[in-house]
């Protein structure tokens, strides 16, 4: 069962496969993931502008390339060549490190999300969510790092992400940035609780923190149908975790300039920007994995081997919902935001855990 934990940790090393090959596979996976995520993030910006334009009865960017298709490239060039103004009295080291940390943590969190079922190469036994089902061959996991506590890994990385924002705001030596950073950290920490509570439902039902198994356990019935409340809680808290409207207090323009990254210009800002959009993808991907059956085909007659396609489609759908919400709802007041997190989301999450646990125990 869980013996896979002992087989290799950082890299999924199949028995009988030499280490250089596994390293190579990991490298390829890493590069692919990086490219895909960064491209997605870039095009998300375009998508955001397009969707917002449609919602506001505008057309949106349409000058660079056909239908504005090359707009992200233009944006990137602009960000890179922009003068990176920096405030006096900043903490030089941390000011440079924080944006990088923000982007890195956002990318890092994606590492344990499986986007397809494990494929068995050259081994006996078929493919499936369990690496143990591939004796003698190479079990190709469709995540960068296969951890049997994958979900905890994501929570851990998210909790580190707070530092990027707080340190960035603090190192700027500016009161807007510091206040934004304070708000943001408080918000992230509060909503992290809600996120943790929401994800326990699927964990209880599947009996595992291994994301492949969580998806495998949804065979036949997605958890969104068993855990509708947890799904809503996760999406709500996830919105807050990505600092998006209606929870974008950290950068509430009217009050705080641009919040924690007020003083960041050029690529420093670009890093935060990338991090934010990658975080959206991550939140959508986690929701897909935990509640929407991950790579599984949405209807039983559709072929399952198109796993990554189904996965991407579900993620895309969720991201669209997030964009839609952003351009529809106004911002919450800060005290309301905290109250909502602690007094509404948290008790609901707790109730959901209790009910689910009773259900699992009586089953």
């Amino acid at each position, binding site marked *: 069962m869980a013996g896979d*934990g*002992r087989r290799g*940790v950082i890299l999924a090393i199949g028995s009988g496969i030499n280490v250089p090959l596994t390293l190579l596979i990991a490298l390829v996976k890493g590069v692919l993931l990086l490219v895909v995520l960064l491209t997605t993030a870039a095009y998300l910006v375009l998508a955001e502008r397009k969707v917002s334009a449609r919602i506001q009865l505008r057309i949106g960017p349409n000058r660079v390339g056909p239908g504005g298709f090359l707009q992200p490239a233009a944006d990137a060039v602009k960000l890179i060549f922009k003068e990176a103004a920096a405030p006096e009295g900043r903490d030089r080291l941390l000011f440079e490190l924080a944006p990088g940390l923000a982007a890195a943590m956002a990318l890092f969190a994606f590492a344990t999300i499986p986007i397809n079922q494990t494929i068995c190469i050259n081994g006996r036994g078929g493919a499936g969510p369990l690496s143990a089902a591939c004796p003698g061959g190479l079990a190709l996991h469709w995540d960068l790092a296969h*951890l049997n*506590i994958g979900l*905890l890994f994501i*929570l*851990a990385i998210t909790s580190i992400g707070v530092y990027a924002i*707080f340190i960035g705001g603090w190192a700027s030596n500016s009161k807007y940035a510091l206040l934004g950073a304070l708000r943001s950290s408080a918000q992230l920490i509060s909503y992290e609780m809600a996120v943790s509570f929401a994800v326990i439902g699927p964990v209880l039902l599947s009996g595992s923190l291994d994301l492949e198994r969580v998806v495998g356990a949804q065979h036949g019935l997605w958890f969104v149908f068993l855990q509708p409340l947890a799904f809503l809680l996760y999406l709500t808290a996830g919105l807050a975790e990505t600092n998006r409207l209606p929870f974008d207090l950290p950068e509430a323009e009217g009050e705080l300039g641009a919040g924690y990254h007020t003083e960041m210009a050029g690529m420093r800002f670009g890093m935060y920007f990338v991090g934010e959009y990658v975080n959206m993808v991550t939140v959508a991907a986690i929701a897909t994995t935990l509640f929407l059956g991950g790579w599984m085909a949405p209807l039983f007659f559709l072929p399952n081997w198109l796993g990554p396609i189904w996965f991407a489609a579900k993620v895309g759908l969720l991201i669209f919902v997030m964009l839609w919400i952003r351009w529809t709802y106004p911002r919450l007041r800060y005290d309301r935001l905290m109250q909502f997190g602690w007094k509404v989301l948290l008790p609901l999450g707790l109730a959901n855990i209790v009910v689910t646990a009773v259900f699992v125990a009586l089953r």
Partner: protein
Amino acid sequence: MTALFGVAAGIAFLGALGVVLARRTLYSALSLIVNMMALAVLFLLLDAQFLAAVQVIVYAGAVMVLFVFIIALLSPGAQERLRPLELRVVVGAAAAVLFTVVVVRLTLNGITVTASGHFHGVIGPFAPALVDRHGQVQTLGEQLFTTYLLPFEITSLLLLVAAVGAVHLARSRRPEP
């Protein structure tokens, strides 16, 4: 694996040095976080995945956030530089030497880490066979709810009491009736 261990151990060591030697308090705290993250990697290399995750979530993620908050908001000035022969330096160095001796002795005293990174000590509830059969989190959970049920429940009581105490100290005064 060995190379990875070397890297992680080196970072942990540098982080620990940073805690002591950094002149700005915030840098000390951040070094401690680096140290904790490196320790988490070491746990991973020892196949203690759950411990690694908890190390990051609880220590690096939760506890240290408060440290960093407080330090950043109080903004203490730079520490004065330590003089090498100051009393506290001498005492600290002596304690460090003593501690090293203790750890080395412990290591020689039956607890060994083999080349493959597996831990061999006294076989407790986390015997490899058991972990292999049930998985780590499951074994831990089972132990918590059976062997360590009483300590586990007392801990929950402790946390409740700590929360009550903290609220009592921190909240604004009750209005006079």
